[in-house]
């Protein structure tokens, strides 16, 4: 099978898989909303000059006391919930994609080098990776942020990256070890290709397939993690929008009957993660050669 045919089969399968389509549609919707946030939101909830306490704790428009333009109501600082959610998604996605990109690149490089060169490099990096892995991304990121405290979004990204690269490194290393044994690699080596050339031209592209699944799964995990950290008060600072923080604020109001402050950000977060996971599930099935697909 040529590469083009694989790609087109993948595309065909994708277009005929309902959950994959639904998942990516959801994700796309959130990305579009996040990118267009300044133009589609009635209010920039973090621009202090336009905010006012006047409209605090307004319920959603369809309820008694609700007013436009606060479609989903406001919170206790008079921030429009819908606008805050959209800006919060923006933070989630920025953190999610940055972490996946940075720790992915780092992890792939480390995995590639460890798998390719082996010996002490392999032992050292994999021992480190094992340790970090067994500490769990969540625990490590939590401890790092707990110690650094109020840093801002870049610090959150950095802390999660420190804990997260191992996923990629471990997967990549395993994949490289398999690919290394393939006939075409041995052939290339026999033809006199240098290490760098073999590594970049032959091994890297051929061992990336399992990484795609990790990317998709990891995006969901990181977005949940950022929300969790912000919920606990060690993530994104108070002055930045975040779904986790909105839920933490809303939680104080659940007994007060002001459910809109927690329900809408909660649903948004779950939908965002479900969307990514649906897509990730499809990708995993598609790229896993070990499972026979029906039909």
């Amino acid at each position, binding site marked *: 099978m040529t590469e083009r045919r694989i790609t087109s089969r993948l595309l065909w399968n994708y277009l005929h898989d309902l959950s994959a389509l639904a998942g990516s549609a959801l994700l796309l919707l959130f990305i579009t909303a996040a990118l267009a946030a300044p133009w589609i939101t009635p209010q920039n909830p973090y621009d202090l000059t336009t905010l006012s306490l006047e409209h605090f704790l307004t319920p959603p428009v369809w309820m008694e006391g609700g007013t436009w333009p606060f479609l989903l109501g406001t919170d206790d600082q008079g921030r429009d919930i819908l606008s805050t959610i959209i800006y919060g998604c923006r933070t989630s996605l920025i953190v999610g994609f940055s972490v996946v990109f940075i720790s992915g690149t780092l992890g792939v490089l480390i995995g590639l080098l460890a798998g390719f060169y082996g010996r002490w490099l392999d032992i050292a990096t994999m021992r480190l990776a094992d340790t970090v892995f067994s*500490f769990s991304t969540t*625990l490590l990121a939590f401890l790092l942020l707990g110690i650094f405290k109020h840093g801002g979004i870049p610090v959150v990204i950095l802390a999660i990256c420190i804990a997260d690269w191992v996923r990629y490194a471990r997967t990549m290393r395993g994949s490289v070890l398999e690919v290394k044994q393939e006939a075409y690699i041995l052939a290339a080596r026999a033809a006199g290709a240098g290490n760098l050339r073999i590594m970049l031209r032959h091994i890297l592209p051929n061992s990336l397939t399992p990484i795609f699944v990790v990317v998709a799964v990891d995006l969901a995990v990181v977005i949940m993690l950022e929300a*969790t950290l912000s919920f*606990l008060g060690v993530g994104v600072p108070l002055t930045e929008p975040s779904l986790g923080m909105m*839920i933490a604020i809303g939680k104080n109001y*659940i007994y007060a009957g002001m459910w809109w402050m927690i329900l809408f950000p909660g649903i948004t977060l*779950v939908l965002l993660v479900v969307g990514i996971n*649906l897509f990730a599930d499809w990708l995993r099935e598609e790229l896993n050669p070990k499972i*026979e697909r029906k039909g």
Partner: protein
Amino acid sequence: MLTYITRRFLQGIAVLLAVSMICFFIFQFMGDPVVRMAGLYATFEEQAEVRRVFGLDRPIHERYVRFVWNALQGNFGKSYVSRVPALNLILERFPATFELAVCALCIAFTSGLGLGVLVSLKPYALRNRFIMALSLGGISLPTFLTGILLIMIFSVFWNILPSFGRGDAVQLGFWRTGLLTQDGLKHLILPSLTLASYQLAVLLRLTRAGMREVLTQEYIKTAWAKGLPPRIVVLKHALRNVMIPVVTITGLQFGELLAFSIVTETIYQWPGMGNLLLTSIYENDQPVIVTYIMLAAAIIITLNMVVDILYALLNPKIRYD
């Protein structure tokens, strides 16, 4: 085998040293604990004295060496906030966390494995698709949201289950257990479900994937062909092979469980180690933070070692050398 264990043990010690060193390094950038310890009305001079008494005026490397030396003798320093040994403070909270974690683990493991097998037998049945959809929800709902959701349903809306604390607990020697009273068990339901939900979904999906892979293998086909009853084929032949990775992952993911127990304990005000850690982080109680981290690291490293060794014993194909 013995050399392997020794090597892992030495590596563990190295990790602990590295972890504590990083902690000490980072502590320099945290707030100054002396201000709180000297009292609100202390003068600068009195603050300096407190600094001296607690050895906080010494250079960081000297303090670190002293910490390691004391830690080797089982002394992890005194909490700045409550002025008692940090280790005791944490160990006092250990039973609560342990009971919660073990309960959650049991729920996640049995249900995850059971449902995973069930789903893998008839992947396209409606009921199983529904279970899979739920498991998708399970891995997409962050623990804190699950907790809030359960509280809203069972405590706020229906008001049938308690939403905080441990209830009546019984002291058995040094161990304080909530498992022996009805009230204690009632208090355990929501937190353990919350903590279990994510792991349950992960294990379910792992089991299903493993089963689907195994069920296509030759020896299973042979077993079917031999006319063995489905119970034997599924449980004895297929599941046994799936168990190994599932057990391994469960063991290796203990850190994850510990992390989510922090979240769960915070939401339910569960008087465990995680709750203590979060308070200590807010209050900048450095000795407690570093002791917690060391303890968590030690537990995780030991567990990993045990899992590795068990793995080697179960699976004679693997040799460590």
